[in-house]
């Protein structure tokens, strides 16, 4: 920042009135001499010009953005589906580019060092032979995977994407607190942090001087595409699935970078090659950016109990047929105890000291180190040597400043002696503080910065900012999000405006082949289509019941009990609260949608979430009759909104085809089921109305037949009408058209098994008269639809 920048008087007067930097603590906003750091001045002045109401409104804008975008993380808890809103701390952390460049230079050296270390641990093991690393820290390490020993990665490198957790120590220098080498998260969240702060602080200055994030992602995607053997094969993100705490980020990055998102069961290994099962058959995969811990990647050779791996993946890696980002086994570098040996190893392997020191660490397996840890326990964090948690992620089996975090009944020294080789001592670092917003003012909170690094042909490149963790109190151990900390954007500022960046190479237009749809995604889309349609059908039938109840005013009316019975036959219990009646189908739809979140728009997801929350918001005190009918009307409009968003806006790729096929088959089956239930021999007066209402066809019926509904007119309209989108025939025709567009619809003059079943069914209805549609015919029709569903699954979905 130029020296001309001065702090607006308002800033110090109100915003900083309570901002007191504690003695012995470094601060991001204030230099040690008490002066505000120049890099913060433009931002603080901007903030000072806003009224408290404006600031609150700006923050709300950012939060609203995050909610609309669906950003969440999962809290590991008793309820595995619990999602938490992204805990954005609205005030960014601001660092000058010169300081940032120094950090990156140090981390670049560290990244190279880590590559050398992991190559040695899976290669010659000279570090152990020469006494630079104790053998037990490797041999007992759950992240040292023996099946990978002696395997050189296809790309020649183990590490491609890293994150470093860094903090500022009291003397102002930076310190590495942890290396994230397994499957680092944060890059996608950094992007969302930036999108949110761009809405909170939209003014062009100081925005224009903040380094952009997109270039990093472009460089990394190009680097992955350039890996050996990646050409012509797919680059994919391998996720553990929707249960993972950072699943949102996996879907987000997949969408952002245009990569396919896969789970272990999407992949098969044949003839040593990794292939993705798609609706067009197996297709080769060249690069897997894995977000899955190595142990779970291959149940045949790694953790046998893994349900989310791919049998044979290790074999394919051994045969150099797939690039892993990062190599399986890289997670060993996250081991806490390694911090004790890396400074020396740097000198051995690189011939130079670490440019950026890591947190001082002593392994208690060495006698003199153990003695030192015992003597200085009051200034240390003592924890598990093989833990891969960050220093401030303190478990119950650890001691901070001489006291156990959990209830331990033995003296500290005895505990250290008894578990020596399993323990490390780490200097209890006092982290720097940075401004956070609390009750209308700025307060200092401890923070760490996460720096993302990617390997490119030109060397390591770094994501300039985007992600800092902020403590919720002065306690530096309350940093992790799981304990209520928050996350802030990090702005790396230049003295002059930076050029715009985008994800795309300028002027380099090409239409990418998006590749065939993975079978599992197709399966989920198909069932999403079915369950949403099933939910809609249930809403319509329930509404028909409650409307009649409102008219009759008496649930014991025989007409109503008859309808209730018939609905019961369709597995709809009118006596259940609406929530309980609709949740099974809607919940199933939500689970399917959650598994293909990368495949439909943010708006579509939001519409489904809105439907769910509307259903959950229905109180149990809704009175049967009018109350319920009205609530169901609202739900009906919302579900139609979801259908509209998806069907109007979704690209006509095979994903859309499976979703739509699912909707069509469910609708055809639903109509047949309702007719079957309502068109029995003894038709109660008025019952055909319900069928028409289910089919949304009352008005058409009135216009066309000009008589009260009879079984024949209802059948004509609901089964045989090729122009009524609620009719069975209409849906069969829609299904047939889709089936003709699916892969292998016709092979050497033979139509696919799906079409073979569909064509005669459709033709049969085209030439049928209402009188032909007996109850038996409807039963056969339903059986045929179930058979078609099975044929579709066998041909495309497994």
């Amino acid at each position, binding site marked *: 920042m130029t020296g001309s920048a001065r702090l607006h008087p308002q800033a110090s007067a109100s915003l900083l009135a309570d901002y007191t930097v504690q003695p012995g603590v470094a601060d991001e906003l204030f230099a040690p001499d008490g002066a505000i750091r120049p890099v913060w001045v433009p931002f603080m002045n901007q903030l000072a010009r806003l009224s408290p109401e404006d600031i609150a409104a700006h923050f709300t804008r950012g939060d609203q953005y995050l909610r609309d975008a669906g950003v969440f993380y999962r809290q590991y808890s008793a309820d595995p589906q619990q999602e938490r809103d992204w805990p954005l701390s609205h005030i960014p952390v601001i660092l000058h580019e010169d300081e940032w460049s120094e950090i990156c230079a140090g981390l670049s050296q560290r990244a190279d060092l880590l590559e050398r270390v992991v190559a040695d641990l899976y290669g010659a093991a000279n570090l*152990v032979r020469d006494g630079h690393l104790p053998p037990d820290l490797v041999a007992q390490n759950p992240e040292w995977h023996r099946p990978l020993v002696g395997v050189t990665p296809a790309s020649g490198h183990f590490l491609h994407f890293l994150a470093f957790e860094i903090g500022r120590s009291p003397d102002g220098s930076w310190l590495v607190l942890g290396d994230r080498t397994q499957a680092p998260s944060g890059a996608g969240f950094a992007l969302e942090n930036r999108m949110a702060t761009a809405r909170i602080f939209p003014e062009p200055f100081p925005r224009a001087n903040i380094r952009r994030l997109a270039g990093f992602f472009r460089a990394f995607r190009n680097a992955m595409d350039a890996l050996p053997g990646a050409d012509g094969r797919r680059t994919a993100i391998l996720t553990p699935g929707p249960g993972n705490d950072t699943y949102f980020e996996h879907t987000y990055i997949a969408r952002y970078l245009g990569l396919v998102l896969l789970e272990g069961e999407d992949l098969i290994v044949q003839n040593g090659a990794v292939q993705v099962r798609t609706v067009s058959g197996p297709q080769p995969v060249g690069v897997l950016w894995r977000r899955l811990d190595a142990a779970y990647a291959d149940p045949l050779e790694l953790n*046998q109990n893994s349900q989310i791996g791919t049998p044979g993946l290790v074999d394919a890696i051994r045969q150099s047929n797939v690039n892993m980002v990062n190599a399986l086994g890289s997670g060993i570098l996250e081991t806490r105890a390694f911090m004790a040996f890396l400074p020396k190893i740097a000198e051995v392997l690189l011939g130079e000291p670490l440019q950026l020191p890591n947190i001082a660490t002593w392994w208690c397996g060495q006698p003199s180190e153990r003695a030192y840890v015992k003597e200085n326990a009051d200034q240390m964090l003592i924890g598990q040597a093989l833990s891969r948690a960050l220093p401030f992620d303190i478990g119950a089996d650890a001691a901070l400043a001489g006291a156990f975090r959990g209830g331990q009944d033995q003296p500290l020294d005895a505990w250290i002696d008894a578990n020596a080789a399993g323990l490390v001592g780490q200097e209890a670092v006092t982290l720097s503080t940075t401004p956070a917003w609390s009750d209308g003012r700025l307060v200092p909170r401890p923070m760490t910065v996460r720096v993302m690094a990617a390997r490119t042909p030109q060397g390591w490149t770094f994501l300039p900012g985007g992600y800092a963790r902020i403590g919720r109190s002065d306690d530096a151990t309350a940093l992790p999000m799981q304990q209520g900390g928050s996350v802030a954007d990090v702005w790396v500022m230049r003295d002059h405006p930076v050029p715009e960046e985008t994800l795309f190479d300028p002027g380099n237009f090409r239409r990418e082949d998006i590749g065939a749809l993975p079978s599992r995604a197709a399966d989920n889309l198909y069932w999403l289509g079915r369950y949403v349609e099933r939910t809609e059908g249930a809403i319509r039938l329930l509404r028909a019941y409650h409307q009649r109840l409102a008219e009759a005013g008496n649930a014991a009316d025989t007409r109503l009990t008859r309808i209730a019975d018939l609905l019961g036959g369709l597995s709809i219990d009118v006596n259940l609260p609406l929530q309980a009646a609709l949740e099974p189908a809607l919940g199933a739809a939500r689970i399917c949608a959650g598994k293909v979140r990368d495949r439909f728009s943010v708006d579509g997801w939001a519409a489904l979430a809105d439907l769910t929350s509307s259903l959950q918001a229905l109180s149990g005190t809704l009175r049967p009759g009018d109350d319920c009918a009205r609530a169901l009307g609202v739900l009906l409009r919302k579900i139609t909104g979801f259908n509209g968003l998806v069907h109007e806006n979704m690209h006509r790729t095979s994903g859309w085809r499976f979703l739509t096929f699912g909707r069509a088959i469910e609708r055809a089956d639903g109509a047949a089921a309702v007719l079957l239930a309502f068109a029995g021999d003894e038709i109660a007066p008025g019952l055909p109305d319900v069928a028409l209402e289910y089919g949304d066809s009352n008005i058409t019926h009135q216009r066309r037949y000009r008589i009260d509904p009879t079984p024949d007119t209802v059948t004509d309209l609901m089964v045989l009408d090729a122009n009524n989108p609620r009719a069975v025939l209409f849906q069969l025709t829609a299904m047939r058209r889709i089936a003709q567009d699916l892969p292998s619809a016709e092979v050497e003059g033979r139509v696919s098994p799906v079409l073979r079943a569909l064509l005669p069914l459709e033709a049969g209805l085209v030439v049928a008269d209402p009188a032909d549609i007996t109850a038996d015919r409807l039963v056969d029709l339903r059986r045929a639809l179930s058979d078609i569903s099975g044929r579709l699954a066998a041909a495309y979905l*497994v």
Partner: protein
Amino acid sequence: MRYDIRLSIGNDYGAPSDHARTLVRLLPSDLPGRQIVSSRLLTVDPVPNERYETTDFFGNAATVLVFHAPIDRIDLTLRARVERLLQPSILDLSPDLAGLAAELAAHRSLGPGAPHHYTGPSPRIAPDPAITDFARSVVPPGSTALQAVETLGQALHAQMRFDAEATDVDTTPSEAFANRHGVCQDFSHVMIAGLRALGVPAGYVSGFLRTVPPPGQPRLEGADAMHAWVSAWCGAENGWVEYDPTNACTVNQDHITVACGRDYSDVSPVRGTLRTSGEQDSHQKVDVVPL
């Protein structure tokens, strides 16, 4: 002593399973000074689409089988001719347990034979307080490593009852020890847990026993199926010593080695992954005939 070995082992699956991939560890290998394999042949039915031989981290021969079409059963047959060489009786040059720790610390290697792989918990063997207490109670302080191995092995043999029906392949060492019964896998897992608790690196060996005993000697337990025993590191001088807790004997010419590892999970003879929901049924038959 030379043997003809014939093993048939198979699995029936309730429903056809898709994309089966199987890792087989059944082929015995040459062991310098201990074992010479003059022939070995593994046949697989149905014939897999892919089959290749590899060597795993611990040096065991492993066969990878891949089936591209669904299968509803797999049958494996091994025929091998193996010579076991007579081992001289062991002269106890092992250090006491404190000395063993020092020798262990001085051993700087991560190679397959390094004792460091065998000191801590492994996938199937977690530390167990009851086994630890038992091991400490039967092995007197000041014992050499070799004495500790033999003392613990004999004590377990005396305490635990061989029962082919009481446990299965997934029984944990804690359960087997608590009930004081099991098969060779259980005896071995419990002994390994006990040795590791004493600071003696210990691993798991799978293999075969001669089916028919020499004249005048009792038939050994565990000869109808594949067998398992323990390998323990007794210091730099004695190195790895093998002990069979199921029969309370050191391993010599009656045992034929197939594979070794940290516990059963490293050597399981047929490790497969199937996408199947059906029940599995497996059978095994072994003949080890001296020539």
